[in-house]
């Protein structure tokens, strides 16, 4: 059974009396890349975490087309700062497969294939800590993609990377999207949102103000806040 559509109805998160996000209503389906944009602290990370299931809801509902346990196995998440295990590059890549019960030899074969695909094969047996920032993020991305997720969430994966590393990450994402992975990614970089996005979600103060096709959003945003944000004004 497929994972999509993902439906959120009145999804809301409050922590210690503070409103983090919601109520959010959205339906994610089909293929392509959805970019989540908005100013700092607007709730982009919270939105991705709620949909991914790592942030507990205070109200409302988030539903996948298949049972939750199965759904968790078919998604990946890439964090803003790469979260790497204190292991070698190879063992970082095999880890999610071994959790799924894949045989070690098969997992290692697949890890070698992915290391080559993202260009970190030179450090395959080295500790992951020796990688550069861009390589670490590529490793984190490869580790998320190695499970062939149906949906991949990325939380500003290129925020601290230089142009070259950003381009390489984007190329990997485009090829993953072409291979059928549904991508939802937050970014600060409007150029990146235009390059990659098929759809755009504009978030402000924990609420989804716009969820539209990327072209339409960038050409004619519907809300005054989105227009101000795209103009580069400070939006609160």
């Amino acid at each position, binding site marked *: 059974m497929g994972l999509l559509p993902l439906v959120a109805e009145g999804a809301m998160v409050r922590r210690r009396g503070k409103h983090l996000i919601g109520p959010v209503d959205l339906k994610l389906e089909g293929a392509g890349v959805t970019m989540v944009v908005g100013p700092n602290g607007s709730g982009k990370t919270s939105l991705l975490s709620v949909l*991914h299931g*790592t942030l507990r809801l205070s109200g409302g509902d988030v539903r996948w087309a298949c049972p939750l*346990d199965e759904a*968790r*196995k078919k998604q*990946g*998440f890439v*964090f803003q700062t790469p*979260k790497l*295990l*204190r*292991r070698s590059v190879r063992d970082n890549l095999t*880890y*999610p497969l071994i*959790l799924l019960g894949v045989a070690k030899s098969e997992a290692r074969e697949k890890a070698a294939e992915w290391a080559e695909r993202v260009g970190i094969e030179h450090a395959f047996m080295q*500790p*992951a*800590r020796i990688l550069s920032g861009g390589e670490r993020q590529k490793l984190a991305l490869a580790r998320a993609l190695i499970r062939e997720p149906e949906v991949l969430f990325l939380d500003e994966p290129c925020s601290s990377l230089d142009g070259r590393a950003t381009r390489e990450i984007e190329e990997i994402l485009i090829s993953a999207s072409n291979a059928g992975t549904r991508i939802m990614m937050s970014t600060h970089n409007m150029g990146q949102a235009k390059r990659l996005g098929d759809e755009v979600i504009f978030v402000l103060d924990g609420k989804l103000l716009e969820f539209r096709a990327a072209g339409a959003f960038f050409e004619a945003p519907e809300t005054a806040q989105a227009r101000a944000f795209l103009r580069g004004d400070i939006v609160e």
Partner: protein
Amino acid sequence: MTDIWEGLLHAFRMLLALDPDLVEITFLSFRVTLTAVVIASVIALPLAALLVVRRFRARRAVIAILNALMGLPPVVVGLIVYILLSRSGPFGVMGLLFTPTAMIIAQVIIILPLIASIAHQSLRELWSDYHDLLISLNTTQRQRIVTLIWDGRRALLTAALAGFGRAIGEVGAIMIVGGNIDHATRVLTTAIALETGKGDFALALALGFVLIALAIMVNIAIHWLTRTETEGRW
């Protein structure tokens, strides 16, 4: 000062001659301590990892108790184990009092909180790095514990070595439950106490130097075997 010098010379002479009593005492010290460290680690390390990954109501209280028990007076532990294993005690029927097993039991009780507390501190730091990733990968509690123990193994080794250090130098509890019986439960520390009591400071010091050398050798060997220093944190 002369006593210390004489003690060193005596220690060398005994080691060179492979004095049978010294070998027996040293071997028993090593066996009792190592067994206690292994048993305590098998219990303490998963316990420490569990306290890190699992949130439950009494968690803070358990951590506070473990920390407090690090300073458990060995003599009191010895006394309690003695009462439990003595003929009139609940486990008296097992006939364990004044055996190396009784000494191991006492040492496990003494070092378990120490190993668990140090391990908990190390794993807490590792968990803060791993938390988001392991939650995101939908790992089970068991998988999280295994991952933390494996990836934190070098820091955990330090915890186990701290336990070894405390256990090998322990005298109060094992004197009570072991009885310091010649060729049965006499270990380096109890032998030192005995020789000091008899006024044979040179022999007591010689045994002391052997004890220190043993502790240093075990530490160096384990660090070398696991390459703790050369491979760094991960």
